[in-house]
């Protein structure tokens, strides 16, 4: 493993939605010392009982190859697709961001939310909960701006991704 270029890859997996499958995937990453930047999972095919897992990981090209080969070896894994390699794809994250404040700060947070097209989904006299979707960078930027304005709490989904064009996984 002499290659030092660390790359970030988004990998989509189609797996049987059965007990333990997530533990297998996570256990593989922890057991072999791979990184997980984010991981999302939900059932996407209720008829075939398949879930889709999206993992964002980092590593040298050789390690990324290993990760894919190791994932593919898991018995309940049907398909492994490296979206970063496959080509153009879109990535989105959703975050819920709670900000508390009054006066000018409260107004400012609302103004920034507007620029980022974040929605207010809960509001009290002294707080907002914003819902924002977008790329990881956009969400990072939004949260950074909220910090001085009374950022209380953040909940993020992690990345979901899909390839562009008319082909499926």
């Amino acid at each position, binding site marked *: 493993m002499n290659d030092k270029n660390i790359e970030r890859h988004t990998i989509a997996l189609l797996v049987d939605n059965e007990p333990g499958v997530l533990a*297998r995937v996570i256990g593989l990453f922890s057991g072999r010392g791979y990184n997980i930047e984010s991981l999302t999972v939900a059932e996407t095919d209720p008829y075939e009982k398949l879930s889709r897992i999206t993992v964002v990981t980092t590593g040298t090209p050789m390690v990324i190859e290993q990760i894919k080969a*190791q994932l593919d070896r898991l018995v309940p894994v*049907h398909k492994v697709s490296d979206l970063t390699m496959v080509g153009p794809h879109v990535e989105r994250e959703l975050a819920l961001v709670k900000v508390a404040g009054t006066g000018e700060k409260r107004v400012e947070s609302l103004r920034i939310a507007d620029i980022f097209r974040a929605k207010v989904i809960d509001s009290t006299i002294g707080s907002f909960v914003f819902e924002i979707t977008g790329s990881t960078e956009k969400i990072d930027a939004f949260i950074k701006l909220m910090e001085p304005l009374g950022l209380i709490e953040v909940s993020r989904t992690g990345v979901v991704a899909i390839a562009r064009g008319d082909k499926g996984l």
Partner: protein
Amino acid sequence: MSNAIPPAEQSGAEVLLRALKDQGVDVIFGYPGGAVLPIYDALYQQNSIRHILVRQEGGAVHAAEGYARSTGKVGVVLVTSGPGATNTVTGLTDALMDSVPIICLTGQVPTHLIGNDAFQEADTTGITRPCTKHNYLVKDSSQLARIIHEAFHVARSGRPGPVVIDLPKDILINKAPYVAPEEVRHKSYNPRVKADPDRIAEAVDLIAKAKRPLFYCGGGVINSGPRASELLTQFVRMTGFPCTLTLMGLGAFPASDPLFLGMVGMHGTYEANLAMHGCDVMIAVGARFDDRVTGKLSAFSPNSKKIHIDIDPSSINKNVHVNVPIVGDVAHVLEDIIALWKRRNCKPDGKALSEWWAQIDQWRARECLKYRQDDKIIKPQYAIQRLYELTKDRDTYITTEVGQHQMWAAQFYKFEKPNRWMTSGGLGTMGYGLPAAMGVQIAHPDALVIDIAGEASILMNIQELSTIAQYRLPVKAFILNNQYMGMVRQWQELLHGGRYSESYTAALPDFVKLAEAFHCVGLRARTVAELDDVIKEMIETDRPVVADIVVDEKENCFPMIPSGAAHNEMLLGPEDKAAKPTSEEGMVLV
């Protein structure tokens, strides 16, 4: 699979046995307990499956490994919940590392008690997830038969491995429907056996142009079945190329063939390791570039183009970058390569090859395995050589424990055929050899089965002598007794200034008396003069024998590539060690 659910007439335990029978199982290695009593009850009422009662569950897994590796069939283990299941973890890990097909049936508390810290409950699927190829917890009787068949498919196809099926007691008692193996197909797990023809062509091109070629072959050849060894032997002979084998691959190519360079790796031969280092085309067949083989990665075979044939895509480009990756089953791939080689009328570069052989012959002339035997104290190498000479004309199977004796066995016992050599390679599990020999003997009742053992290792599963006695298995334990954990002592001598911390076993048992206490025959050889007689008596005795061979305490196993060193930095003997101190980098390696 048809959707109509067949009627459930039999208990889960009966369905289980029926499924095992339909999978061709004739023997299981097990140990009873509360959670699996329904299975034991069903076993009692049938006679198509034989049960071998081991003395500890760890022994059951190694026995099943020995059975599997010597037959190519799946080995089956049956244990109870909790401690029964946890005792299998070492064996399962061993089978995973060495790609041995095992089905391990574990009892579990009834489904409604799972998660309640019930008596003898353990999270077996959680514990065994990283040490199995796959595992199942059966929670629904209607899935029981399907899961068993699927488990067998997973265990034996692709790169084989251990599979655990965790069976809650209510599932074993409740009625369950049966489905036959033919009705079960797995949706996602169907490993590729035929390789991409383009890759085959690239490989043939490279092989035909090679000037300093080398075949480097491992356990994958043996796992692919006897046909793979035949094809390998045929192809190596067609090309006239040199061939080396890994510890796991011994027997895949006949050791007596002049094209064989001996074993490669940490304790491999000088010629094999230097050929690895100096070759220009390496043809890796069912071998996984393990660290015991490659030595220092950055200096590993620096000038070669590498072809890698493996059924497991994750083995390819894991440690070493290869030029021609070929994913497929060894026998299938070799068949395709040979066919193309013939079709294209390929010929190796004769002139280059004879220069390469001249170089190899110079390396061979170093006689790296040479040792000096005086006329009194038995050298361990000599003991193995004599064992080989006196058993080679018989139908012999060898297992080993782990340590120096294992390496000497690999160096000095010559294997002509696959499935004759069972050793714990990937995990290096002391205590493997005796129960493994037991499993081999069950599969081959009339064969000569010998565990080449160290006195420390064999004590780790010595209780299995009791099983061996019960079933009148004429297993031979051939102990190279150096009173030390020799391999530990060797590392301490070479790397830790000769400070022999805890590597000497004081108060060893008297192995002859121990044998007798277990209803076995005990023999002992103390001198060179006694050795042959003891070996002969051991072979002739139609009962289990423990032969205590008192060998030189201080002998070290050479050649040796110290951790972190390259192939061309190997130590040939004791004189070499001072000249080449181990690097700091190497000291942290295992």
